[in-house]
């Protein structure tokens, strides 16, 4: 503890010196999501304007705040002028220049670009007036987007590594006991009790134990783990070190996918800094405990997130799951007892140690204490990363916190748990989000991917999309998953093309059940979930596709047609004609337009460009509903007639 206090006070001293000049601080989000939204250009623009105008301000890169719908975000903190720290949203390079000039030169905080103040004050409404801020509860992401992930001092300032320092004075069993009592369950998908896993590892005779942090994160659309590493890597490292101490490991590996270059760099840098400070490496904080942490870059296969496949991959073999038992805690990497934990699981550990198991239990539900982190994407207003107490209902999360469905559309379904999860309809919106309730509903907590879908989504097509993913990502080892999911995919493909047979529905159901029971690993065991839940909750859509050759959501191309309503079409308007890539639109009677159904490829371009005052293009299913308009001989497409 003494060594820790020294390190911390040195860090505080350094920060104090840095801030002695009282210069304003501009924090800009610089995680992968913000960079994709143009944060690098915004930063350059700020540098330029500061330089041009001779302004002094420090620019600090921070990680992701979770508000990905509003990236890039900027927080200007200038206590000298009496403003609270102010957060700006969607800051393009031009906006950044405007904001900086008016803030620093005119003392005007540009209210029109303000998202909110980061503190309570009398001047500017704080961000906490938005449910997206106030209804979240942050344990793992508490400091994300607020501290500099590349500077360990920032983490130390927030009492970082104090938990590690304190457990070094405990017996490892006491640490396991705290985690056990906290009721923490693995955030990697299955929700296995973490304390139980650690205790199991301690019981192994072999004392050459290893800890692996699973940051493979292969679910399409999920990026929580990446964000946590990019935004606050030290909280993960602290949790990792506590875990290693508790289970008696002196080696730890962080398995990150190679497609996450920024996360890899950030974590490598963090490890190096922690080692320089004596917080990792030999004799941590002056104790007998040593830990070597390395980063392993996985090749990005989804199945490598499965723990036994992950271990095979670290051993240099093809990432193929193995039968369990033996579990990795018994016989894992190189035959040694191996604890595999998810990023969010490990990052939950330092706050639990600091505030106690009872505090953690007071958040969330009896069976699933703590918080859940989701990356919410799809048809939802405020997409991004959200951390909420377990037990929050889907309705609260989607409608109150994330602002509901945009464009006045109706909610249709929410897909939780990525390719292994299920699609839940409106009736399930009051389901509390926790491991057991979601599993009961047929979905899964998974690792936290959530896709919200509006009325325009076809559930058969959604199931087909996920099956295509699992079939492609199946490791190919076992019969049910390798061949069974191929059949599921083929059948779904047929149905979306209008070639489905009535008996297909029964085959889908039976085969999906068998794949679930018969597969070797979690991938195959959960792959049928999108099919089973959509069959259960959206059977009418399947029947419409199969029996009526109709796609109720007007999504499946083979089952729809576009036509132009001659009543509504404006005489002489030509907008749609040029938009059609295949010259399917021709002039019919009265200089109105019509679509040649033979040529139409159903891209929907004409519908998109038809001026709103006419709104003459319609989409129907089944395609026979579209009125046929004869194409006059003098109106034949040029291309087709010219070429042949």
């Amino acid at each position, binding site marked *: 503890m003494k060594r820790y206090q020294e390190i911390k006070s040195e860090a505080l001293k350094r920060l104090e010196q840095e801030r002695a000049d009282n210069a304003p601080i501009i924090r800009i989000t610089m995680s992968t999501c913000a960079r994709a939204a143009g944060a690098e250009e915004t930063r350059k623009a700020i540098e330029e304007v500061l330089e041009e105008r001779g302004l002094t301000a420090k620019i600090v890169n921070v990680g992701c705040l979770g508000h990905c719908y509003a990236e890039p975000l900027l927080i200007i903190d200038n206590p000298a002028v009496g403003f609270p720290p102010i957060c700006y949203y969607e800051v393009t390079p031009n906006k950044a220049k405007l904001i900086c000039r008016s803030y620093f030169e005119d003392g005007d905080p540009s209210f029109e670009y303000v998202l909110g103040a980061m503190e309570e004050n009398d001047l500017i409404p704080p961000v906490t007036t938005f449910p997206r801020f106030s209804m979240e509860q942050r344990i793992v992401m508490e400091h994300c987007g607020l501290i500099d992930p590349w500077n360990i001092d920032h983490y130390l300032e927030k009492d970082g590594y104090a938990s590690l320092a304190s457990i070094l004075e405990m017996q490892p069993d006491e640490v396991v006991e705290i985690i056990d009592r906290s009721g923490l369950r693995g955030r990697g998908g299955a929700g296995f009790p973490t304390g139980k896993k650690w205790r199991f590892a301690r019981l192994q005779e072999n004392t050459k134990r290893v800890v692996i942090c699973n940051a493979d994160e292969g679910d399409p659309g999920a990026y929580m783990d990446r964000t946590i590493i990019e935004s606050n890597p030290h909280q993960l490292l602290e949790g990792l070190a506590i875990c290693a101490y508790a289970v008696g490991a002196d080696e730890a590996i962080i398995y990150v996918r190679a497609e996450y270059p920024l996360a890899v760099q950030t974590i490598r840098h963090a490890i190096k800094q922690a080692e320089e400070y004596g917080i990792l490496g030999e004799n941590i904080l002056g104790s007998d405990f040593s830990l070597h942490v390395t980063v392993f870059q996985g090749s990005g*296969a989804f199945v490598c997130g499965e723990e036994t496949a992950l271990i095979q991959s670290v051993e240099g073999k*093809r990432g*193929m799951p*193995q*039968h369990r038992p033996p579990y990795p805690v018994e016989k894992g990497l190189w035959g040694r007892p191996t604890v595999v934990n998810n990023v969010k699981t490990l990052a939950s550990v330092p706050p639990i140690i600091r505030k106690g198991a009872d505090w953690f239990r007071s958040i969330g539900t009896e069976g699933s204490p703590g918080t859940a982190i989701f990356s919410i994407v799809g048809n939802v207003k405020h997409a991004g990363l959200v951390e909420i107490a377990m037990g929050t209902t889907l309705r609260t999360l989607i409608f109150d916190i994330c602002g509901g469905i945009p464009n006045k559309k109706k909610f249709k379904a929410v897909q939780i748990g990525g390719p292994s999860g299920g699609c839940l309809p409106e009736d399930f919106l009051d389901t509390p989000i926790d491991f057991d309730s979601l599993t009961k509903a047929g979905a899964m907590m998974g690792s936290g991917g959530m896709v919200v879908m509006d009325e325009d989504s076809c559930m058969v097509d959604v199931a087909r999309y996920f099956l295509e993913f699992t*079939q*492609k*990502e*199946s*490791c*190919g*080892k*076992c*019969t*049910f998953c*390798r*061949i*069974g*999911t*191929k*059949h599921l995919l*083929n059948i779904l493909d047929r149905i979306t093309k209008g070639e489905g047979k009535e*008996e297909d529905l029964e*085959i889908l159901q*039976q*085969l999906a059940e*068998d794949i679930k*029971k*018969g*597969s*070797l690993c979690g991938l195959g065991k959960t792959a049928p979930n999108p099919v089973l839940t959509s069959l259960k909750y959206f059977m009418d859509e399947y029947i419409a596709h199969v029996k009526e050759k109709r796609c109720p959501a007007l999504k499946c191309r083979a089952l729809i047609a576009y036509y132009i309503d001659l009543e509504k079409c404006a005489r002489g308007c030509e907008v749609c004609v040029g938009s059609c890539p295949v010259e399917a639109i021709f002039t019919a009677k009265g200089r109105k337009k019509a679509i040649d159904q033979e040529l139409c490829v159903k891209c929907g371009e004409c519908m998109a460009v038809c001026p709103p005052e006419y709104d003459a293009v319609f989409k129907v299913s089944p395609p026979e509903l579209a009125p046929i308009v004869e194409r006059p001989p003098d109106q034949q497409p040029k291309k087709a007639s010219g070429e042949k």
Partner: protein
Amino acid sequence: MKITVDGKVLEVEEGISVLEACLQNGIFIPNLCFLKERERPHASCRLCFVQVEGMPTPTTSCTLPVKDGMVIHTNTPEVRRLQKTAFKLIMSGHPCHAKTCPVGKNCTLMKIAKFLGVGLGPKPYERLDREMPDLIDFGFMYYSPYRCVLCAKCIHVCKTQNGKPLLTFARRGFETIVAFFQDPLENTEEKCINCRACTNICPTGALVLKDTENVEREDEAQTA
């Protein structure tokens, strides 16, 4: 130790799997990927299901160590349903050309079909085609993807013989195949011709040596 299988009490040695115990005692359980010598069962064919009393669902018997007092049923409706589905799935990617097949009468798949009381076709599933040639040239032998059931026996014996496997899995999903890697610094061909562990163990005739007889057969298969 004693276990009970389908009402019969068996005296079995410790440390073996339920599958092995049953096979030793003349109780057949369908299996394709089980190899006694393997340290960890491959457990990929998913045919060897049994129901253990006290367990919620059927389990693969090749991965199940015997335990004293265990009560096992090899033929519950649930077990049979999984076995039949697994078998049909395998057959949906393995069209049977009995006349030209190098395995001939001694075919494990036929034996399993007979045992389960099903045909060799995939009904109600459709036949699946691979976007792959029927035969892939491995130098001194041929590999035929549509015959292979990916039991990995060849990979295991190859590794045991050579220290490192020359055979390995490649690709993913339904397109998964066995691939062959020749070390350019070694005269693998000579070594392999003398070894032949893989062609000897392959249960489906997916790996065959290129002697003239086989080549002719394969040509027939191609034109047939």
